[in-house]
Structure formats: structure tokens, C-alpha cells
């Protein structure tokens, strides 16, 4: 799974507008379908609520994490990440070997498999899927990173897949390229694939081979899946699986409370806390692989080194970036922005990946005095007016960008602005859309920004975002953004990046990866602010035997139970409450739920009603005055 930049795109604004206008937000969706009261029937649908809709069901098009959850339900991959600790384990491939000369990898594909329409599923489908990405153009977007070193994919027989690589590649047991049915996808050429929706028409499920088959999708509302009876790990216990899309966090919380959904994914911290006290709900405060950062413009340039953009020169000085790192109180951010559901950040590989994460020896704590000292050294002393200025007496003014789509981002930038202003730096904060931010990042027209990434088990992709080659590129006078949003470029780092990309020994590679994190930590293109927890919650009575990934993390907590790397929960989940689950419930927590919510709902409804009346009066008034003059 390829969670690009925890791009929680949030509910589309237009859709949000529609909900807001129809009146009581967060209450309306729940009341539409009271039919979805917890299924007494054991194999009724298992319903999962989420606040981000799938952007595309075409695995070559989708970007958001939610989409990749759908792909892995529909299509197999060669290998997957284990539930225990993300180590590579078999999926479609039973076993795999690297040739002695490190030039070919041979995968043994499970025999006697079929696609859901009865067509045999063989190594030829796998070879087709890889070659499609290797030879493709548009197909490279999501999976190009996996096949960068693969020159050829061949299927000598139905159960053997041979991948030829141009150089030793450690990534080969983690190729998250979805294996697609050749007989379906060969009809869709390289041009058509760009707009191919891959959605079910006339009730026929999409041809797949994962544990579930997609049978229906209503954009912005729900996705319905049926269990695949021919799946090699066995038919899942729930016959039907439904993903419902909610426009906002409150609505999702209410839906879970009312039993409209059995599982809520990616909840807002306050909503999570509020519903955690409910006796029928099991909160899941899961260790997570996201991080958020304050990123700096380290000197924007094209990949060839040509400077671009209007970034502030002060930020090219490592000391200034370090100073800003010392100026951020990460614990306050965790407490206030995440309501305590997270851990202060350090490096770009989250601590969840215990073998790869570097715990810095000399962590940036909140130390304004030290930050001020570094700024003095860098040539930005305090002026008479209490503002930092350079040697010419020009005040040090930095622009700070937050994201419109994220409440956390907006809160974070307000804190950062406050801390920087305490240091004497003038800060101009602006909130922009994520699309705008990508553009500004690409063109180098920014100083400081707030964003985050979701890091996958293999560190290659994340580490690549700091290489010189990932800076912007220019074609015909147009500048295109690379993956690097800090425009960081460091020779030693690039050397280590190339080195880790050929180290097939996990221990050696982890050592290199830690060295790279140290460089990033010292050179400070980012100030990693926090690692947010993944907040999920489920109804205790609806199902049991869900699987956490990983089983335990650095701080001893288990990970998330859905939206994982792999379909572990879907394979194992059983209907009904666990036989002896009572004790493990969130018992003993205060039961303020019932009393807590009603005043808010009544109050909100009252406020909206009054607003509505006021608006009606006004509009009526205006209409009348228009009529009067006609």
C-alpha cells in the first residue's frame, strides 16, 4: 500500500456545503437510515464508516489511503506485510527466491486459482500486471517506484513468475503491485485507463480474486462488497461488507453510537474521546505510521540545481532551521492538537517501525533560549523593537502555510506562529488548499509549511522524497513538482540512499536507513512535529477476532485493526460479540455519553432553527422589496 502523503483530502468542500445547508449537520445522515440498527442476523453486512471517500477504484488512479484498502480487498499482491511486525509474508506467491547472481527473482504462484468469473488466475496475469506498469506511462504513477529496477516480467508456466532486475534490489519481497485479470484489463489501453472508473455496472461484480468482490458503489455514499467464495484463504465470515462515507467526524461518531456502522475509521480526537465512554464501543487507540511536519524551504531548486522560487534565504542556513526545531514545543502540540492521542515527533521513519526508526541521541526539545542563540549565530539578532533582523536591519519575516483541509494543520500553524513570534520572528500565516500547497512547494514559492506523510513498511519511498533528484523539474518552461517539498539536497544523503537501495541484507540496510535519518535530523529540512495515533472504534457486539497490525509497537500498543497493509482483519473477523469479551470492554469509564450529547444536539438544532428563521425572514423581506419596485 502506497499511502502517499497522509493526504487526508477531507470531505470535498462542495459536498460539505450541501450537508451544511440542509440543516443539522451530523444528525441528518444518521436519521436517514434507522434500518441499519446492529444486525441481529449473524452474517449481515459488516459496515465500516470513514470520512474520506475513495477517489477512484482504478488502482492506477487512486491516491488516498482509503482507495488502496479497496484495491487490496479486490486484487492480490505477490506478497503482503505480516500482521505481527510488517515482515514480508506470502500472498499470491507461496514462496520466492533470488538468483545467486542477484539478477532474477523467481516467485512460485499458488496453483489452481480462479478469478471471480471462473477464468484461471495464473502467473501470466502476474507477468501481465508487472509488464503493464513497466511498459506503461500513466501506470507508472502509483507503482513506478516498485518496478524501477525491474526490466522484464515473464511467466514460463502457470505457477512461475520470473522478474529480472537491473541491479540488486531489496524491495523485491514487498512489491505492492496489484495483480489484475489480464483478460479484463488488456481491453483497456494506455489512453483509456486514465479515465477508466473500474466500477460495477448492471449488478455484476468487478472481476477480482481478493477476499471480497465489489458489487456496488455510490460516489460519496457507500461501497458494497460481497465475500469471494473462491478465495484461497477461505470465504470470509461476513457475506457482505459495506463502507459508508460520512461528511464529517461528528456524523461518523453518531453513526457508530447508533449502530449504523460497526467500525469507524480515522476518527477526530475529541469525537473519539467522547464516544470512548460508551459501553457498547471498543475504542482503538492504535500506534500509527503517519507523521506530521513543519517543512522548510531549504533553497528551492530544480533537480539540476537551478534555483527557483522566492524562499527566504535565512532558511538555507542549517542553524536557522535547527533554531526553528528548538522553538517548537512538540508535547504541547500532541496535547492540544491531538488531544493527547499521539507522540512527539523526531525522525521521518515513525517509531512503529522498530527496526528502522532512529531515536535521536540529542533530541530537539522546547528550548527557546537555544533557538535564540542559534539565530544570533546565524546573523539574525534581536533589534531594538524586539524583532529579529538581518545585518541590514531588515526584519526577519517568514511566511507560514497551513492546509485548509485539516483542522489539525490550522491549529498547528497557529501554535508555530506564536512560538516563532515569541522568538522575535515576524510570521505571515496563510491557509491554503492542499492543491495550492503542492503547487507552491513545487515552484519553491514558500518559506515554511505544515503537512504530513504516511510511511509504508519499506522506507525507500519515504527516503526518496529527500533526494536531490526529487526536487522540481522543468519541461517546456513549466515547473513540475517532484516528491521533495523541502528541496533538500545533500551529497552524503544521496550516496546513502543509493547504497540502501541495493542492500538486500535487512540489518545492514536498517543501519544505512538510520544514518540517513540522522542526516535529516541534523540538517533539519523538516521539524517532525508528531506521530498521530490512528483512532478507530468499533461496536463490541457486532464482531470479534479483529486483528491488529502490528501486534505490538515500540510503546507496547497494538496497531490499527482495519486499513492495514494486508487484509488480516477481513480474513479473521467473526460475527457477534466475542465469547468472553465482556471484561476487555472499555468498562469502568465514565458513562457521560447520554447526558453529554443531548444538550449539544438540542442546542445545535435550536441555533440552526433560529438561524433558519432569521434567514427566511431576511430572504422573504428581500423578495418582497424586489416585488415592490417592479
Amino acid at each position: 500500500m502506497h499511502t502517499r502523503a497522509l493526504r487526508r483530502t477531507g470531505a470535498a468542500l462542495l459536498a460539505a456545503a450541501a450537508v451544511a445547508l440542509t440543516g443539522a449537520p451530523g444528525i441528518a445522515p444518521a436519521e436517514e437510515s434507522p434500518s441499519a440498527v446492529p444486525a441481529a442476523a449473524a452474517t449481515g453486512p459488516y459496515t465500516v464508516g470513514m470520512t474520506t471517500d475513495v477517489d477512484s477504484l482504478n488502482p492506477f488512479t487512486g491516491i488516498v489511503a482509503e482507495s488502496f484498502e479497496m484495491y487490496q480487498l479486490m486484487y492480490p499482491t505477490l506478497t503482503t506485510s505480516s500482521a505481527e511486525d510488517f515482515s514480508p509474508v506470502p500472498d499470491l506467491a507461496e514462496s520466492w527466491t533470488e538468483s545467486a547472481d542477484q539478477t532474477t527473482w523467481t516467485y512460485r504462484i499458488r496453483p489452481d486459482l480462479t478469478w471471480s468469473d471462473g477464468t484461471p488466475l495464473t502467473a501470466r496475469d502476474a507477468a501481465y500486471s508487472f509488464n503493464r506498469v513497466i511498459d506503461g506511462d500513466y501506470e507508472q504513477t502509483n507503482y513506478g517506484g516498485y518496478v524501477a529496477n525491474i526490466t522484464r516480467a515473464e511467466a514460463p508456466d502457470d505457477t512461475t513468475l520470473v522478474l529480472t532486475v537491473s541491479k540488486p534490489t531489496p524491495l523485491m519481497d514487498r512489491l505492492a503491485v496489484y495483480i489484475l485479470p489480464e483478460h479484463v484489463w488488456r481491453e483497456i489501453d494506455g489512453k483509456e485507463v486514465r479515465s477508466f472508473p473500474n466500477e460495477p455496472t448492471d449488478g455484476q461484480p468487478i472481476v477480482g480474486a481478493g477476499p471480497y468482490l465489489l458489487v456496488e458503489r455510490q460516489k460519496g455514499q457507500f461501497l458494497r462488497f460481497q465475500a469471494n467464495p473462491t478465495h484461497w484463504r477461505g470465504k470470509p465470515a461476513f457475506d457482505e461488507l459495506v463502507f459508508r462515507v460520512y461528511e464529517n467526524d461528528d456524523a461518523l461518531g453518531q453513526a457508530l453510537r447508533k449502530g449504523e456502522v460497526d467500525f469507524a475509521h480515522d476518527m477526530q480526537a475529541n469525537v473519539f474521546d467522547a464516544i470512548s465512554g460508551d459501553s457498547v464501543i471498543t475504542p482503538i487507540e492504535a500506534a500509527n505510521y503517519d507523521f506530521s511536519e513543519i517543512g522548510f524551504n531549504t533553497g528551492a531548486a530544480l533537480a539540476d540545481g537551478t534555483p527557483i522560487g522566492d524562499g527566504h534565504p535565512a532558511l538555507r542556513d542549517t542553524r536557522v532551521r535547527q533554531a526553528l526545531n528548538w522553538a517548537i514545543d512538540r508535547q504541547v502540540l500532541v496535547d492540544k492538537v491531538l488531544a493527547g492521542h499521539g507522540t512527539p515527533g523526531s525522525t521521518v521513519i515513525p517509531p512503529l517501525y522498530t527496526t528502522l526508526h532512529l531515536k535521536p541521541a540529542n533530541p530537539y526539545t522546547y528550548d527557546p533560549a537555544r533557538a535564540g542563540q542559534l539565530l544570533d549565530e546565524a546573523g539574525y539578532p534581536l533589534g531594538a523593537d524586539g524583532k529579529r533582523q538581518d545585518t541590514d536591519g531588515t526584519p526577519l519575516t517568514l511566511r507560514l502555510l497551513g492546509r485548509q483541509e485539516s483542522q489539525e494543520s490550522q491549529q498547528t500553524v497557529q501554535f508555530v506562529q506564536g512560538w516563532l513570534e515569541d522568538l522575535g520572528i515576524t510570521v505571515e500565516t496563510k491557509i491554503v488548499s492542499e492543491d495550492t500547497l503542492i503547487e507552491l512547494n513545487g515552484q519553491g514559492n514558500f518559506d515554511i509549511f505544515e503537512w504530513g506523510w504516511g510511511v509504508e513498511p519499506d522506507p525507500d519511498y519515504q527516503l526518496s522524497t529527500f533526494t536531490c533528484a526529487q526536487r522540481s523539474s522543468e519541461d517546456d518552461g513549466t515547473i513540475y513538482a517532484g516528491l521533495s517539498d523541502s528541496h533538500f539536497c545533500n551529497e552524503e544523503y544521496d550516496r546513502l540512499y543509493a547504497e540502501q537501495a541495493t542492500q538486500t541484507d535487512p540489518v545492514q540496510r536498517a543501519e544505512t536507513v538510520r544514518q540517513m535519518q540522522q542526516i535529516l535530523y541534523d540538517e533539519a529540512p523538516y521539524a517532525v512535529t508528531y506521530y498521530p495515533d490512528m483512532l478507530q472504534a468499533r461496536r463490541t457486539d457486532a464482531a470479534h477476532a479483529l486483528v491488529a497490525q502490528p501486534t505490538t509497537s515500540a510503546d507496547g500498543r497494538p496497531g490499527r485493526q482495519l486499513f492495514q497493509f494486508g487484509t488480516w482483519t477481513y480474513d479473521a473477523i467473526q460475527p457477534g460479540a466475542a465469547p468472553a469479551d465482556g471484561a476487555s470492554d472499555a468498562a469502568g469509564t465514565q458513562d457521560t455519553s447520554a447526558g453529554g450529547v443531548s444538550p449539544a444536539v438540542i442546542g445545535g438544532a435550536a441555533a440552526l432553527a433560529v438561524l433558519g428563521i432569521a434567514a427566511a425572514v431576511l430572504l422573504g423581506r428581500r423578495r418582497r422589496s424586489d416585488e415592490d419596485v417592479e
Partner: protein
Amino acid sequence: MGLRGPMPGPEDAADLVAVAEPAAPLVVPSSRQLARARRRASRGRAWQQFRRSRPGMAGLVVLVTFATLAVLAPVLFPPETISVVDATGDPLSPPSPGFPLGTDESGRSILALVVWGARVSLVVGLAATVVSMLIGTVIGVMAGHYRGWVGMGLNRFTDWFLVIPFLPLAIVLATVLGASLLNIIIVIGITSWPGTARLVRAQTLSVSARPYLERARALGGGDLHQMTRHVLPNVMPLVLANTTLMVALAILSETTLSFLGLGDPLAPSWGALLDGAFTSGAMTVGAWWYVLPPGLCVVAVVLAFTLIGRALEAIVDPQLSGQQR
């Protein structure tokens, strides 16, 4: 007194005499002086009438209260109190002696935020109304004054804007322009002028048929002269009454757009507060103190402007006042 006012009754005549008298014994007042005196008198009369309107006065009291609070915000609550960094409260804590209206998700006092919000909401509401009124008046007067294809064209242009649904247009504009206070003012301004324009055009048409405009034309007054010296002063009272109503709409629009996350999230307007409550899960938490104060403030101010606007309308439009009494 507006053009459509009643013929001067005995009472009005007395006023006129009373005002004119001190100047009369020595010199004959110039026409300009007379006009000024007449206007002063009519303003005084309008105020007398307004004072008799109980809803209008109630609205005025509410409005003055909010305006005072808005002006005094930095004194009552120093800027530090609404800075997230210096916030001292617990996140989303209920009302307590220290925080009479509770706190938001960052631990800031809702009371302080609401008072500061009055500043933003009022400023945006007034500024957007000025923009809207300027566009609406200019286009309205021109559309009414010029006959032929200019007037027709302007009229169709107004109609075209009038039929575009407000919210989608505002959302698209706000998205394209980016989230900032100035942009919100512009967006509301350029989406809400057509109503004013039509009102002004209708009034202009009626004024244009009056004999004194014919006289002005006969004396060789140009279009600009006619519009600015004769038409404009006579549509102004109506425009002002309409403006007051427009402010109410502008504040509601600002609240709507900010609530949808299209305003400047860093400026604590009432809409932005409601948006903050919405996105930080205040409803599920049961934090009514976060939702109700900004909501009720919007209602109060919008209502105040509406009451004042209607009272003013009744004064400048005697037909309306006749109906109401």
C-alpha cells in the same frame, strides 16, 4: 425627506420656518444653504420617526452594544487571550468562573473569541455591504438612466447575476481566490449586489419621469450631472435603508462561508468559530458552549440590522409605513 414623501403638512411647514428663520432677517439664504437646512430638518424628522419605531430602537440598542464590544475587544481581552500559545484553559472545558463561556479545543476562552469575533464579523459584513452597495448603485442608476441598449444590457447583466445561485458562486469564487478576509469581502460583495441594483434601477426610472429631470435636461444637464445631482440624491434614502438590510445578509453570508471553511480560519469570526466547533467534534463532545454563543450572536446582530433596516425603510417609503400602521 425622500422624494416620495408626503406633501408638506402644517407640521413640516413649521419645521421649515423654524429652521430658516434665524438666517432670514439679514440675508436671503442661498439655495445651497436652503437645501442644507432642509436636509438637516428632514434628518431630524427621520430620527423622530425612527425613535417612535420600537423594533427599530431595540435593534439599535443591540447593535450599539455589539459595536461597543467590538471596539473595546482589545481592552477587554488583550490579544494574548486569543493566542493558542498563551491559552491557559483545558481543551473544551465547560463554563466556569475563569471562563464564563467555556473554552475551545485549544483551551482559549470562548467569551474572548466571541467578542473578537464581533470585530471580524461586523467589519466583514459592513465592508462587503459597501462593495455590494457601490456596485449595485452604480449599475442600478446607469441601468435606469440610460435607455436603449446600454440600459438593457446592464439590466440583463443584473438579471444574469440575480439568477446565479449565491452559494455555489460564492464557494467557487472563494476557492479560486483563496481563504482570506479580503477575499471573503470581495466574494460577498460581488455576489450580492443585483438586488440593490434592481431596487435602484426601479427608483431611478420613477425619478427620471419627474418634471425637474426634464427641466435639467432642457437646461442642458449632461448624463453625469443628471445622475449625480438629481437621481442619486433621490435614490439615496432607499439605498441606505436597503444597505442596512444588506449588512444582515452579508454577515449571514460571511458566517456561512466561514463555517464551510472558506473564510480565513485564523481570524476568529463567528462563522469560523462555528466551523472550529464543527471540525473539532464539539457536537459529539456535547460542548454546547462552543456552538451556542457565536450562533446566538449572529442571530442577534442579523436581527438588529433587520429591525433597523425595516424601520428605516418605513420612514423613506411612506407607502410601506402606511401599510404597517
